[in-house]
């Protein structure tokens, strides 16, 4: 575990140190994460939310929510 030799980035003592500086690849983790966050959201997710919303509205009809279309019956 502590046998990292060829790094200049201060990763020399890789003991249990969660406090030590992030290694040089650390930015890549953010890149991986952010690249997904920034993807266009597939329609299936919005569809799911709308479906949940309208099935709620159908259940509690006196609880008139905001902009809800009538349920489309394919729930």
């Amino acid at each position, binding site marked *: 575990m502590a046998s990292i*030799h060829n790094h200049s980035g201060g990763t020399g003592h*890789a003991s249990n140190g969660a406090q030590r500086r992030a*290694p040089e*690849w650390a930015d*890549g983790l953010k890149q*991986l994460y952010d690249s997904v966050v920034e993807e266009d959201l*597939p329609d299936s*997710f919005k569809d799911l939310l709308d479906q949940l919303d309208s099935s*709620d509205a159908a259940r509690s009809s006196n609880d008139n929510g905001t902009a809800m279309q009538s349920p489309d019956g394919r729930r």
Partner: protein
Amino acid sequence: MSDEGQRANSPGSSLSASDKADFKRSLTDVVPHLRAFARGLCGRPDMADDLVQETMLKAWAAQDRFEPGTSMRAWTFVILRNAYLTDMRRNRFRGEYDEGVAERILTAPAGQEEPIHLSDLHRALLTLPAERREALLLVGAGGFSYEEAAQICGCAVGTIKSRVGRARAALTEMLAQGNIPRRSTADDIAHRAILEELDMVAAGNGVSSRP
């Protein structure tokens, strides 16, 4: 175990319409983050998205347990990780990685060292035991504090710190030596770690249903 998913249609009886609208908006906002976290956990985009949809259903069903003003991202991440662990136990994920990750270069070292590519990092990440992988994802990619990550994982802050430290050390070593398993070789280890963790969750040490 939570059975919120089964009763996805009776949530929020005590919530006002504007609470519900707020909830829907916050949940919508957090979906891209759920996708990113899920992708990091299980690698394959299609499986990750299935996991996110499952999470959304469960979150919706449990919406009156969400405390307005608290972090929707943290709350849904708890649901997502528990769903992931459950699916993992059913062997749905095999730690496959995403072939689509760009071959982007992360480091340009001097000398004859090979540069590190984003895809190397992704592959290396997926060889980590799941508990370390998720700790590193939460802190190193999701930007959660150690305290928040500990809450999400239902463990002590010190445990998170040590998991992150070990994950970093393992990745650094793999990347420095260019010694990254092609795929799935760490499955048995990861799987065992997950099963142990699941037992803890089952024993009530998880935070899946905090009030």
